């Protein structure tokens, strides 16, 4: 496979994942804002912008943190180059560039989603439409992944795509957790207290884990349990442990197909050594924030190493 094509597949799935995660974040905020007073709602929208790292461009064109302003900026803001509409543009452009290495089912799922969303996001999204738009974004992810799972050849292209998905998902879960941590646990003393169950539920909702978490924990919402769930639970598909396992498998498959391990496999082993037997208490001891920042950096380094190992760009 061409290095450029591998790059296209990797980024096609990163952008798809990013769009879906962004929609979940907005959905969770939307729900939160509805159940809160105006001040709390504003804080919620502010944290969405902060989680996405968009404070500067957002504040350059907006005065306050009003829901409609935030979701329009995130979804389709002209001065936000990373808006969801352009993410889908990037998904489609990458799919087109890798057209002969994806199945027709995947291409059609991408193309149809893009046609629908590009039209939906061409005009400002009002309060009556936003729910439908966010649902459509998540559906797009579901459709593409479904087509992908059912029709893609399990060759290297498959593994580059999966690697992109899990690199991006791990990145997203880490950022959401880190942001909420600052908001929710101003000091270590709060760990274990049931300070603001609504806020913690919010974290779970952002990663589509609210229902399953409360099912597993009989409705007990507390910081330690949630961190354990999102970082260490290998069964939950958006947890860091799950993403790490999936990434490891895909990188191992690539190394097998190419007959040699690369720097990406070595970096993956470092992460495994570090996180292998970690407990939630150890994470809190070293500091959750420090742990998350370190994880983000390692995750990003693996992504870079994949691009080098497989000649994405040169």
């Amino acid at each position: 496979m061409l290095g450029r094509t591998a790059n296209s597949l990797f980024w096609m799935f990163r952008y798809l994942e990013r769009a879906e995660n962004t929609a979940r974040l907005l959905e969770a905020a939307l729900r939160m804002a509805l159940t809160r007073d105006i001040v709390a709602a504003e804080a919620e929208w502010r944290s969405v912008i902060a989680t996405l790292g968009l404070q500067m461009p957002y504040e350059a064109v907006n005065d306050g943190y009003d829901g409609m302003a935030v979701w329009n900026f995130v979804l389709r803001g002209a001065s936000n180059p990373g808006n969801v509409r352009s993410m889908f543009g990037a998904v489609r452009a990458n799919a087109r560039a890798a057209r002969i290495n994806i199945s027709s089912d995947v291409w059609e799922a991408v193309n149809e989603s893009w046609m629908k969303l590009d039209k939906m996001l061409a005009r400002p999204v009002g309060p009556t439409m936003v729910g439908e738009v966010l649902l459509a974004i998540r559906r797009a992810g579901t459709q593409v992944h479904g087509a992908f799972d059912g029709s893609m050849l399990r060759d290297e292209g498959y593994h580059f795509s999966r690697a992109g998905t899990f690199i991006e998902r791990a990145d997203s879960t880490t950022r959401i957790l880190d942001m909420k941590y600052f908001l929710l646990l101003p000091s270590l003393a709060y760990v274990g207290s049931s300070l603001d169950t609504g806020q913690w539920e919010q974290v779970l909702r952002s990663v589509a884990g609210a229902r399953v978490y409360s099912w597993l924990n009989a409705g007990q919402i507390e910081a330690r349990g949630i961190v354990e769930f999102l970082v260490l639970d290998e069964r939950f598909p958006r947890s860091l442990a799950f993403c790490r396992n999936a990434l490891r498998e895909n990188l191992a498959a690539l190394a097998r197909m190419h007959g040699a391990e690369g720097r990406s496999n070595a970096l993956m082993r470092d992460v495994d050594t570090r996180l292998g037997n970690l407990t939630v208490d150890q994470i809190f001891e070293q500091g959750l924030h420090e742990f998350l920042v370190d994880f983000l950096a390692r995750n990003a380094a693996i992504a870079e190493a994949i691009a080098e190992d497989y000649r994405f760009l040169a």
Partner: protein
Amino acid sequence: MSAGSGSFDEMFDGSGQTRPAYAEYCRWFDEQPGEFLKRKNREADDTFRRTGITFNVYGENEAEERLIPFDMVPRIITASEWRRLSRGIEQRVRALNSFLYDLYHRQEIVRAGRLPERLLRTNDAWLANMVGFTPPGGIYTHIVGIDLVRTGPDDFFVLEDNARTPSGVSYMLENRETMMAMFPDLFSRIAVESVSNYPRRLARSLAACVPPAFGGGKPVVAVLTPGIYNSAYFEHAFLADQMGAELVEGSDLRVVEGRVQMRTTRGYKPIDVLYRRVDDDFLDPLTFNPDSVLGVPGIMDVYRSGGITIANAPGTGIADDKAIYSFMPEIVEFYTGEKPLLPNVQTWRCADPDSLAYVLDNLAELVVKEVHGSGGYGMLIGPTSSKREIAAFRAKLVAKPENYIAQPTLALSTCPIYTAKGLAPRHVDLRPFVLVNPEGIDITPGGLTRVALKKGSLVVNSSQGGGTKDTWVLKD
């Protein structure tokens, strides 16, 4: 159903009777409920959008993607008509290859005084560094599209030769797929020659032209595209996909150890045959346009030393020139020793003073074309142009007469299209696709029928509001 007026209509004769080729189709058509056809017509549009069969229009807001409108009424050609056409096409394509070989070798045709040397010297498509070089297998035009028009029951003419990089074959294939998906019963009632193995024939044809440096095994074939923003990107991807070839861009390629190689996830890998869909100008920045980022620096050196086959060969574009076209009857006769089976459209070369005088006197009735133009740009259609447009064109023509040829405005045949109000005749042309390899010439039965969707319009180009139809060659 009603007959068209004036031009030859391929479905109905002058008294409104269905011609035999369309008899079974029309019976089927009349049996279909109106609602059904309406729904199918909408469905076709959705299919094309979903599958992404689009082309980009230059000059509109940044590379907007558009569909080429598809008309669901097929254009039908009988087996005997096709036999006649394919004999003529084969003769012409054979002559084209011999002509190109001669141009870049001894130029016998010029020595014999049958073609003015000026036509080569003044032509941008002429490549001096192809002189004396013989491409692998002696093939210049691996893929050719011959544009045909019809004016009567037995009157077919060649309007244009596309020897450079003919496009549109993906529409021939997708139009058929769409028709078969929409109207399966139609194909069980009428026996139509299949077109679907074109990509396999293309792959075989290209693989038959490996360069001297080919190291054995399965030849590595790649399609070179300018990229996803090119107007024909869909077709490039489609053909690569169907052939099982790689789809590469200039940035994927590099000359390594005397071969053109592509950057794969496992390192650089040599390419044997490059089906390039970029123009000569952009092929090699070291040889041609130094600003080109679409090509491969050094590919021409590799080519000349036998390291790669380029299809079509650089320098074939000269055969697309409309001044050269006007000599095609002589060219066919010179190289085949036979009278041309398919006539040219009558053509006045404006470089010739007598012809120029005639053309200037009759601008309002003629079609005038730039010799190097394509895509329906830069031409004058006298009968549908205003006095002012004609005057403006006259000035250009007088200033540079050798830049133009003129032809009579042909009464192109019509074939009905489906409209909300029923069938309505529209003008059509036909581009069959021809593959050439050392073993022979291979013509897919069918081709791309382009149709001018506007009533009365004679311009079928997709860039100018033309659509396409599925083209059927009936089995005997």
